[in-house]
């Protein structure tokens, strides 16, 4: 009897203490670290947001609260033009790269054909090669392609929204394909067989079974493409033509002449847009979980 008593009564708190005490210190350290990382990431954003409401042309000195810079931003034809270009490019490249990337992902995951391995490897290249390399590649490509088009068909192609959109499509396809493929890999191939068994043609099986089930992956890929397109600077600045700048490239150009409250306001706008995209993607993935 007494043996049992000491075992359940006195033993427990001792063991709990000896295990828990050192862990508490580690936990505190980890929590502290988390807060520091958090501060490191978000303090600059807070500073940026606060200063965009600063009623003083000199960025560092607080001159009171104002919406002036936002008003100026929406009145600035350059900013609005760049914003329009950005949205246009992002829209086109997202739609096209989502369609092509989804098709690429499906072809890699569901079919077997000659040269598939090489295609598989090459498709991921744009994900890993540096933006600058990609930019130079694309620029060289356009130079050659334009020369050829001019020589063969007499077409006078120019740099602009078209080249930017093509470039964004080029790098976005890979990202969409990666995301869609991951979703497809988790999908039981027998579902598609079952659809075929139940008299669905290939297209019907895709429309009614495959697509609804990989929709969260496709949506995720599209959101990723949209985000990447909206904040690309390097590649866009290489392949952009006169008068066809996107918002991030325009901001980059402005910063070289010094940071102004206007830039802060534009940055906050872009920040809010990105946050909304993240929110949407979170909602999408939550729905997928249900």
């Amino acid at each position, binding site marked *: 009897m007494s043996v049992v008593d000491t075992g359940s009564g006195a033993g427990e708190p001792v063991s709990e203490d000896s295990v828990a005490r050192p862990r508490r210190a580690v936990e505190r350290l980890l929590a502290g670290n988390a807060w520091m990382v958090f501060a490191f990431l978000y303090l600059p954003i807070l500073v940026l947001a606060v200063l965009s409401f600063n009623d003083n042309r000199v960025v560092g000195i607080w001159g009171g609260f104002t919406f002036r810079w936002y008003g100026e931003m929406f009145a600035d034809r350059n900013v609005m033009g760049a914003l329009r270009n950005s949205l246009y490019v992002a829209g086109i490249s997202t739609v096209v790269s989502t369609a092509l990337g989804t098709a690429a992902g499906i072809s890699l995951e569901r079919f077997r054909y000659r040269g598939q391995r090489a295609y598989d490897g090459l498709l991921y290249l744009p994900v890993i090669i540096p933006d600058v390399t990609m930019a130079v590649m694309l620029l060289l490509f356009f130079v050659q392609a334009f020369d050829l088009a001019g020589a063969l068909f007499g077409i006078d192609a120019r740099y602009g929204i078209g080249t930017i959109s093509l470039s964004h499509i080029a790098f976005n396809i890979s990202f969409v394909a990666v995301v869609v493929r991951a979703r497809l890999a988790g999908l*039981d191939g*027998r*579902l598609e*067989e*079952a*659809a*075929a*068994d*139940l*008299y*669905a*043609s290939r297209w*019907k099986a895709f429309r*009614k*079974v495959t697509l*609804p*089930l990989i929709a969260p992956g496709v949506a995720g890929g599209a959101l990723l493409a949209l985000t990447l397109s909206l904040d690309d600077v390097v590649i866009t600045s290489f392949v952009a033509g006169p008068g066809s700048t996107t918002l991030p490239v325009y901001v980059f150009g402005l910063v070289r002449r010094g940071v102004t409250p206007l830039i802060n306001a534009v940055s906050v706008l872009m920040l809010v847009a990105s946050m909304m995209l993240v929110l949407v993607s979170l909602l999408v993935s939550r729905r997928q979980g249900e």
Partner: protein
Amino acid sequence: MTELSTAISPPVAGTTTSAVSIRGVTKRFPGGKGAEPVVAVDALDLEIEDGEFFSLLGPSGCGKTTTLRMIGGFEYPTAGSIQIFGEEVGLLPPNKRPVNTVFQSYALFPHMTVAQNIAFGLEMQDVAAAEIKERVGNVIELVQLEGRENRKPKQLSGGQQQRVALARALVNRPKVLLLDEPLGALDLKLRQAMQLELKEMQERVGITFIYVTHDQEEALTMSDRLAVMDHGELLQVGAPETIYDKPRTRFVADFIGDTNLLTATVIDGRAVRLSDGSAIRVENDRPVGSTVTVAVRPEKLGLRRVESDRDLTLDAIDGHVERVTFLGNALAYEVTADAGDPRATLRIRQGNAPGVEHFGVGDAVRVRWAPGSATVLED
């Protein structure tokens, strides 16, 4: 040999009455780099009659699933012909074949409700909405899933999902229903209940069922006929009783049920001599003096006390009880023969019925061998 010939389905040439007719079908899968192609099914000939419950039985990798998938259209044969009610389907895609499949993992569409899952095949065939509603309602009643029409597959138990899979296939009134180990994921109790239910349902709807399983008990319980496969080849086709009582090869005898395999020498066309010198009556067509393997089921052997047995020593082996296992409904004995080199060990199973004498370890016994209970194997 007369009994043995019934074990092989008679070769039916050119008839169109078979539900499924497989002739010379071979399936080779490409091997790895530089490796030989893998032969999954090797020159298979098989006739499955209309309205039959037919099972394909064998260990994993024996080619049974590949055969079923070729009938369903998920794999195409490398060579040979597959006909469904006389129509060549070998190279048709699954959606162009008058068959439906119940998949091993059910493969229910997770984004659709039970009713939507079941209606899918009819919708794809552009059946009128009113008819779809009626047929889906009927089949839901058939599989007893009333009230669960609007659930998602995830919200159902394994047994219920199984019924949905069955309903989804049956609602199309296929000419042949293919079932790929459909009960594999269920626990034992439910599996046994579903076995009976499936068999009953098959009799009610009158559709030919082709059932793939590695569970020999399941195949014996449910099938009208079954085929035993190994290494892509058909070893034996026949009624469960024939396969069980008259296995043709060592593999079939061993794979299905428990069996004693004994080496013997042929005396004449009606008897063989076992290694201990005892003569056993077994019909055979082997040359006199040749060595053969005799298979006999443990429950077909009888045990008696040597001293009380006054019969002739024909069809009997004298030995001693080596081990006794009480199984509740039966007793399992291991008896070692008194003579022979090496001494043969026999497994005997006797029902635990009143009046059946129980023996202990070391008892001297005579193993009685009823005529016709043994069979000579081909290998």
